[in-house]
């Protein structure tokens, strides 16, 4: 049973890892916590629903435009809402992103309604077996696509000019702009990538969990816990944190009463922040007022 639980945990862990990655990316780039990150996941999933049902494209062909749309959407949000407040107090920015999150939820409710919808996927209903253990094909898709995204991301970050520029901005905004890097453009790019990463998470998880207006917020909280676990501010940490959280959650669920299982991400969060605020991989001194 343990192994079965762990494999299940890996799948949800991949989703946490992707969203945590998106969160940390924005944090490193603009020093703000994007409370609307969950909604970027949701809106991407709904985009893909619209594309797959209206245009009747096969699953993978529908994925790509949805991811791109999500990236553009994130870009628009950054321009309209984040730009004007980026120099205000931390509070204001946090609240602005919360405002975005509420607005998106409201709009999705208005446009698509609140019924849970399944996302059509060719992998539904199929499974892979190893002896007594099973993994649904969709979960496999989640794990594989996440690893693929992470790989692409790694290459981008380390290997391209834009990626390197992002690293510089993350480290030192002032210095970066002195070097002639357009901080504004890099921030926009960061948001776009965040949106796209979140999109992949949302689209791959929807066939299993069904699309619902509220799906983003819960994922956000878990992803945040994952990011903190790994050390908020460390991209590698966020990813590992995601997988770890998924597995811990699944395993505790198997052996402990229900009420405790849902508290796991939060309890872990508090524990980590109190005992080792920098997380497993964070650098010391990353605290802010």
């Amino acid at each position, binding site marked *: 049973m343990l192994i*079965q639980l762990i494999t299940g945990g890996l799948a949800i862990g991949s989703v946490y890892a992707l969203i945590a990655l998106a969160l940390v990316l924005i944090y490193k780039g603009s020093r703000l916590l994007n409370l609307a990150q969950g909604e970027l996941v949701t809106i991407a999933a709904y985009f893909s629903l619209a594309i797959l049902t209206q245009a009747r494209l096969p699953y993978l062909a529908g994925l790509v435009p949805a991811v791109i749309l999500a990236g553009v959407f994130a870009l628009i949000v950054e321009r309209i809402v984040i730009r004007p407040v980026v120099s205000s107090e931390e509070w204001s920015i946090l609240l602005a992103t919360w405002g975005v999150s509420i607005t998106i939820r409201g709009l999705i409710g208005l446009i698509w309604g*609140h019924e849970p919808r399944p996302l059509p996927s060719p992998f539904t*209903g199929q499974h892979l077996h190893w002896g007594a253990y099973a*993994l649904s094909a969709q*979960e496999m898709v989640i794990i594989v696509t996440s690893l693929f995204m992470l790989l692409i991301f790694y290459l981008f970050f380390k290997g391209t000019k834009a990626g390197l520029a992002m690293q510089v901005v993350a480290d030192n905004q002032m210095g970066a702009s002195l070097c002639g890097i357009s901080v504004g453009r890099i921030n926009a790019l960061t948001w776009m990538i965040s949106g796209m990463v979140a999109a992949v998470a949302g689209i791959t998880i929807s066939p299993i969990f069904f699309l619902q207006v509220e799906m983003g917020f819960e994922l956000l909280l878990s992803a945040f816990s994952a990011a903190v676990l790994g050390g908020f501010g460390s991209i590698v940490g966020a990813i590992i944190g995601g997988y770890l959280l998924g597995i811990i959650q699944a395993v505790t*669920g*198997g052996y402990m009463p*229900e*009420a405790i*299982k849902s508290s796991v991400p939060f309890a872990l969060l508090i524990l980590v922040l109190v005992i080792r605020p920098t997380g497993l991989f964070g650098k010391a001194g990353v605290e802010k007022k």
Partner: protein
Amino acid sequence: MKKSLLVTVISGIIVGLGCLGISLAMAGDPGVTKTTIKIGSNMILTGSAAYWGQGSDKGARAYYTYINEMGGIHGRKIEFINSDSQFKPAQAVAAIKKLIEKDEIFILMGMQSSVCILAAEKVFGEAGVPLIAPITMHRQLVDPPRKYLFVVFTEYWDQAQYMVDYMAKEARWKNLKFAVIYQDDDFGKEGLAGLEDGVKKYPSMQVVAKESFAPGAKDFSSQVLKCKQSGAQGLFLSCVTAQAAMMIKEAEKIGWKPLFMVHSATADDKLIELAGPATEGALGVTNVVIPSSEKDSPPVKKATEIIHKYYPDQAIDVPTIDGIAMAMITVEGLKKAGPDLTRVKLIEALENMKNFETGLVPPVTFGPNNRQGCRGALLYQIQGGKFVRLK
């Protein structure tokens, strides 16, 4: 300067609307005029069970509009004011308070979610506003019976018993080991109690596993796994559709194919839509006909006609049929109460309702001490991707 202007405008609007609200609140009468009757309701219009509220809302509304077009009831047109509970008792209480004190409705009908109704009863019970034909059922709603609360549906407890009694007579099921996954509140626990009490009557059956979940939970991997490991052959799900579907898919994923069983809160086409072919063979016990399975029966055809007249795109599913059936019963009560319409007269009229046939639920009978309109249930099984009635 600009900021202050914006703030002034916003404050001005809020104050102005506040005053308007005050004056509106002062006008009004208790829901009945020479020309209108105000009927209020509170349904699950948003949230994961939203298709219940949306469907029932349309069903009821279509019927009221139809009645209005035919001249109304003793010359009065029905104004139907619905509200959202989001499946949360706190919201329901606030919404009912608003309906009674601000909108000043005459009666309530078709409310959903027993937990919400029990919570809101504090408000409508004390205000003396009758609730007719809620679209849900719970033992506590009829025990003890209240003068102002007329329940139509069979309890989940009775439904589960009905199903177990049926199964005990079938060779293939009479030695079944049951597992139950239930929502951790009164709604879920009632189904659990019904099943357990039913199984107790038959020594060859037993309940080998019980798992619960918090309302709104999305992940059931551990519960389903534990049920599988218990060796159960049947899985009874005491919850709403979305979650039942997720659990069925979870079982499918881990390669477990028990006999799934659901009750009326879940037994409808949405389940098949969400969970797919894994639902094949599942049993559903209901207190209302499943319209997709009874498309040709005259009452279902008539109901479909009425609903499609005003909502041509509305799917004719269980929630919608619930809505129209409960509206029919409400209207019948209002008709019988006569032109001199008061709450007392309506209650009297309902108490005299005997075997009122909607064709969509079993015949409805109330009495001076009887607030449970229907007894008995219907059993369906999913065969070939559709619900089929078992005789």
